[in-house]
């Protein structure tokens, strides 16, 4: 029997493409051309499975029009707000993702943002590279110490808990806000807040680690920002939609938010140009999970899930 046909929408790390080519008739995208919904429908004709990426919108219309031969949809991401899950469910299409494996890399990215923002990495870097550094001075580019500060984590899922573990090694006191309190072993000493008011007041550093979607859209708005202590540090390595950009930019301009570090943006890869003029913000281009180790692990787990569905087994990474 010939290998099943797998449509891969974008270029993947070499080890993952090699595995796909070994186990499937893989329709790869060596040019890494962006794919529209119409492209996907065309390329999926006669395929058994699709491995897509967060850049592609798989809305109800696209999912409804997929060829009947498609038995599983894998996404090279932990998030799935680009996929209309209700439509997939209606069509009986299992969706598999890449949970767990990028938690550490994404939490690392949040830590990097916390340090880079608090210690004014962008400004320091630009000063040095400009060749205009005139010497050490006791009052130059003073940032805010990270060790020993209070860290508030909005969304204490896998990534939030990894971040909490890292922060604890820096003597940070961890506070968190989530829909429900975690059991003590997962909480690991972090302090749960039942409401936004007490949570935000505790956040000398606020890290957003919640999922995107309508329930959290623009959660960090002007009203909530006002509840942060003056000079607070805000970082977001989760989803751009969590933040009201105009409100955060205002707060960075006024200094109410002292520093911010962002890896994600509402409407990326476009971003509110107001950020680009600010010195007290460190900006990364959504590369929270962009490590060699993590991307390989992501590719392997999503292929494991696709393999399982096609073999009639229950995948461990089924999105429910």
């Amino acid at each position, binding site marked *: 029997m010939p290998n099943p046909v797998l449509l891969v929408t974008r270029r*993947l790390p070499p080890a993952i493409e090699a595995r796909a080519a070994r186990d499937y008739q893989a329709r790869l995208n060596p040019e890494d051309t962006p794919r529209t919904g119409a492209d996907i429908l065309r390329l999926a004709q006669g395929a058994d499975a699709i491995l897509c990426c967060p850049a592609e919108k798989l809305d109800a219309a696209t999912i409804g029009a997929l060829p009947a031969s498609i038995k599983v949809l894998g996404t090279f991401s932990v998030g799935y707000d680009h996929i209309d899950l209700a439509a997939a469910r209606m069509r009986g299409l299992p969706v598999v993702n890449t949970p767990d494996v990028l938690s550490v890399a994404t939490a690392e990215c949040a830590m990097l943002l916390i340090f880079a923002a608090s210690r004014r990495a962008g400004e*320091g870097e630009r000063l040095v590279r400009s060749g205009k*550094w005139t010497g050490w*001075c006791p009052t*130059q580019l003073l940032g805010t110490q990270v*060790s020993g500060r209070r860290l508030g984590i909005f969304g204490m899922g896998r990534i939030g808990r990894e971040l909490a573990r890292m922060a604890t090694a820096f003597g940070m006191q961890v506070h968190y806000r989530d829909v429900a309190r975690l059991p003590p072993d997962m909480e690991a000493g972090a302090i749960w807040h039942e409401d936004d008011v007490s949570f935000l007041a505790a956040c000398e550093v606020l890290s957003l680690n919640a999922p995107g979607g309508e329930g959290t859209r623009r959660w960090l708005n002007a009203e909530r920002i006002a509840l942060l202590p003056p000079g607070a540090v805000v970082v977001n390595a989760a989803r751009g939609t969590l933040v009201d950009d105009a409100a955060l930019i205002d707060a960075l301009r006024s200094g109410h938010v002292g520093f911010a570090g962002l890896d994600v943006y509402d409407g990326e*890869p476009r971003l509110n140009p107001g950020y*680009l003029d600010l010195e007290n913000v460190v900006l990364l281009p959504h590369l929270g999970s962009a490590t060699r180790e993590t991307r390989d692990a992501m590719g392997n787990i999503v292929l494991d899930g696709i393999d399982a569905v096609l073999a009639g087994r229950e995948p461990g990474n089924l999105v429910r």
Partner: protein
Amino acid sequence: MKPRLIVSRQIPQAVAERIRAEFDCPWPEGRDMTADEAIAALAETRADALMLTSHLKFGADVMARLPASVKIAATCSVGYEHIDVAAAQARGLPVTNTPDVLTDCTADLTFLLILGACRRAHEYEAIMRAGWRRGFGLGEMLGLRASGKRLGILGLGRIGQAVAQRARGFGMQVLYCNPRPLPAEQEQGATYFARFEDMLPHCDILSLHARSGPDTLNIMNAKTFGLLPKGAVFVNAARGNLVDEQALLDALQSGHLFAAGLDVFHDEPNFDLRFAALPNTFLFPHMGSATVETRTAMGMRALDNIAAVLAGKPAIDPLWR
């Protein structure tokens, strides 16, 4: 009568407020002075104490010209390469530094260097400031995950130990090289190497925390960089003269090193601009202790030393005994 003080460099606000309250000082916020200007100000005010930083080269020649009224010189730094300690001792002048208070801050910056170098922070920031506008392929612009790596530390002193403790939060395996192994409670499970050369092949990430001196001058050179595994990450938040910079440039350009994070250079601020032209560097203008909290604590510690000596008590952090 309040003791008279000259502060030869700008200092943080909270320190200036304490100076106003406790000292007689013409410029409590500090003033950037040359050695000549500092000596003139000390003489004019018949000052009891001088607070300085590394910008003021405090050698035997400067000390010989100090007015006799000066009873202590306190540097607002942990390093004291700018002070001729032997000359101070010969003159019987107490000189002090500010250890301990910048340990956490410097250890934090070391992790910023590690994470920034591993995760290509400079390249990413530059992409953003240029407007981004293009998504990346899933195999494109990948960095290294720092978690779970083997971290080698040269010099497991106060700062080195603080770095090692933070490394545990990233599940790193810590290796270290010191003249002598530390007791188990300070070692905290780190693996000891007596010879630096023996440790290097096991370091995915290497961080320097040694003092500068004749035995550590250019300790990182073509040979020692060559002993690191290919693709290693190198960070230095200690002293620039620990590194042969030509060898470091070569290792970065050849790809033997994945990236380097540097807070210190041989020649500061006139560092080798070839580092700035490389994409795989993450560079800082000597900001290891650059937080409001730490710089304030350093200033306060310097004032504590001054107050102790002027009250006839022993200095808290003497550089000679």
